[in-house]
């Protein structure tokens, strides 16, 4: 085995670090407290460098960067606390369109996603279907040369700033659920779409989107009619294995170490002198190294053209569950002071740990719950029978 990065990847890591040190400011991160986890100026600056198109093969008009460089970009952004949500989703949608879309989408939409001028969001879950996403009932029906779409989607995060939604629809209600699904890329300015905010217990806002007789040409279809599930598998593969979330913990651990070294407890000691605190910090740092192993493994597989599924589920499961545990451990360590939110001038490091504590529960839910990912591991890796 060999865990070294090639020299060009190491050089890219330096380039990304320098870029973030120059282009990402505390003010930008602070601005995401309005609930929108996106920094347009940073996104455009990255697009200018060709980094959004990085993972897309050069033959398809992308930057042709290796998956190893993509994981480096993701890692460095998360270590620097740059929001990766909108960027990640947009790049994944571009990759899906290149894998499953037709020429119209490849020529008219993908370039705009990759040059930073357009954003996309996911439209999978519905009010009644989350984990059972293949049961989606948002309907797409043929109407002459066009499609007529009716239904509702939940958790269409970023829809309020996005230009497109990648929409999972039912095109045939009379066949087994996985066989009657089709995907569309829907421009969000199409008449008949309504976007309502869904506030969350964390800072970020999500959305519910409603589709009322939305008319769409066939050129917006992604993949085959009733072939939506194979598109979904591509989407989940990218989301769980590559899109990020493997490095959410390090900024929390940094903040915890800072607190442990600088805070004085009522008895005059510092938390860093406490063996239980020291053990929790080491446990967290070990978890980070495990996440790093998983992330590099997925990138290496992708780089070698190996289709991975189970590995992505393991990565997502371990990274999100451990991140949640770290947030709870270090929030506890701070006691009452940890309760202060970023709105308080006294909050430690802008309330970073508190903010992550509130964000963390969603990470074991979105993109496939921990329970669903364990199902994938049990069936796909251990060969256990389907149990639902």
């Amino acid at each position, binding site marked *: 085995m060999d865990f070294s990065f090639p020299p060009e990847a190491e050089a890219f890591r330096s380039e990304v670090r320098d870029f973030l040190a120059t282009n990402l400011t505390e003010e930008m991160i602070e601005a995401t407290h309005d609930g929108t986890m996106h920094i347009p100026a940073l996104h455009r600056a990255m697009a200018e460098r060709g980094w959004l198109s990085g993972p897309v093969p050069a033959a398809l008009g992308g930057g042709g960067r290796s998956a190893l460089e993509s994981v480096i970009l993701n890692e460095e952004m998360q270590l620097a606390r740059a929001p990766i949500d909108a960027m990640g989703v947009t790049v994944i949608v571009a990759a899906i369109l290149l894998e499953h879309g037709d020429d119209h989408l490849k020529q008219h939409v993908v370039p705009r996603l990759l040059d930073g001028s357009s954003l996309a969001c996911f439209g999978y879950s519905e009010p009644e279907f989350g984990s059972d996403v293949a049961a989606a009932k948002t309907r797409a029906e043929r109407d002459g040369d066009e499609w007529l779409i009716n239904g509702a989607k939940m958790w269409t995060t970023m829809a309020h700033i996005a230009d497109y939604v990648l929409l999972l629809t039912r095109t045939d209600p009379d066949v087994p659920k996985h066989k009657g699904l089709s995907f569309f890329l829907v421009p969000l300015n199409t008449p008949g779409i309504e976007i309502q905010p869904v506030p969350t217990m964390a800072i970020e806002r999500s959305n519910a989107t409603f589709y009322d007789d939305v008319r769409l040409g066939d050129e917006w279809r992604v993949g085959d009619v009733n072939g939506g599930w194979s598109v979904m598998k591509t989407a989940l593969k990218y989301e769980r294995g590559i899109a990020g979330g493997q490095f959410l913990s390090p900024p929390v651990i940094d903040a915890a170490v800072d607190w442990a070294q600088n805070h004085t407890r009522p008895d005059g000691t510092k938390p860093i002198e406490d063996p239980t605190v020291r*053990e929790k910090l080491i446990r967290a740092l070990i978890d980070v190294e495990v996440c790093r192993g998983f992330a590099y493994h997925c990138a290496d597989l992708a780089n070698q053209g190996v289709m991975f599924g189970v590995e992505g589920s*393991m990565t997502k499961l371990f990274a999100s569950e451990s991140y949640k545990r770290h947030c709870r451990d270090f929030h506890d360590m701070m006691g009452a002071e940890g309760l202060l939110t970023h709105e308080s001038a006294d909050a430690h490091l802008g309330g970073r740990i508190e903010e992550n504590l509130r964000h963390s529960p969603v990470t074991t839910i979105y993109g496939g719950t921990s329970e669903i990912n364990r199902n994938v591991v*049990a069936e796909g890796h*251990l060969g*256990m029978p389907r*149990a639902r």
Partner: protein
Amino acid sequence: MQTRLTEDELAVQDVFRTFFANESPSTVVREAERTGGFSTELWAGLATIGGTGMALPGAVGGGDATLCDLAVVADVYGAHLAPVPLIEHAVAARLLATIGGHDELVGELANGTPLATIALRPPVDGIARFVPAGAVADVVLAHVGDGIVLDRSAPSGETLPNTGGLALAHRRLTDDVISVDHAAWNHALDEWRGLTAAAYVGLGRRVIEMGVEYSRERVQFGVPIGTFQALQQGYADASTRIEGAHLLAHRAVWALETRQPDASRLAGMALLFAAEAARFATDRSMQYHGGYGFSEEYDVQLYHRRATAWILQLGDPSLEYARLADGEFGPAVDGRMA
């Protein structure tokens, strides 16, 4: 970057997997446990296929294999709970080779006789306690304050009865220092940590595999218990941790091999994580075996006890966390921490 086993490593794995599957079935493990935790026949067989000297320099009769190759062997060795000190012997012999000046002995060690080990804990008043394979090792390397000592006194053959059925014994050691290369000693201990982490991965994978096999056969409430999500979720969690441990253990071993600056840190982390992952896996597998898992008849209890024992040879895991914390944050300043 190559996070999967290479072709060469797969070939090594294949040879030793076949060997341990044939020569170290649980009957051999059980018999060794009754006779002090060591199988003479297995050790001789291992020497015959080059397993005792594979990662020693070719110049002194070793196989010139990499530490990464050795980790692959440690994995399958762990999967079969092989009752021989493969890791300790290799680490001790490699340390002697590094120190230099003992080429003849290292050449003999490559062939498996004499049998060497290292004392993981510093001797107190000339006695190293709980030496792995201490009951049978002819050569013991230990670290005293002044440096590394080499002891060739005869083993007693008396094993301390213990949880893991290991050939543990206390050893009275000579105080003849053969080297003051403290860094070499620390590196050897880190090799033990990294390789033992790899062995834990093999153990964990196998105990999950056994549990999954059992879940296909065992019928309750009219269906195989493997159809229950409760079991599936537990095994999936265990498997995820074990695969994470695999990636970390092999990264640590690769880092030791290539002398990366974070090698020691990763080796310490890998051992703690792999031990905990394997202990979680054995706990789940035993639980899902029901009462039979607790019975002596089923092999899962053999795995459970060894998963518990291996890391404790080094001491309380809390001390390992504390050691890593000292490296990460500096020593704790408060006197109560000492």
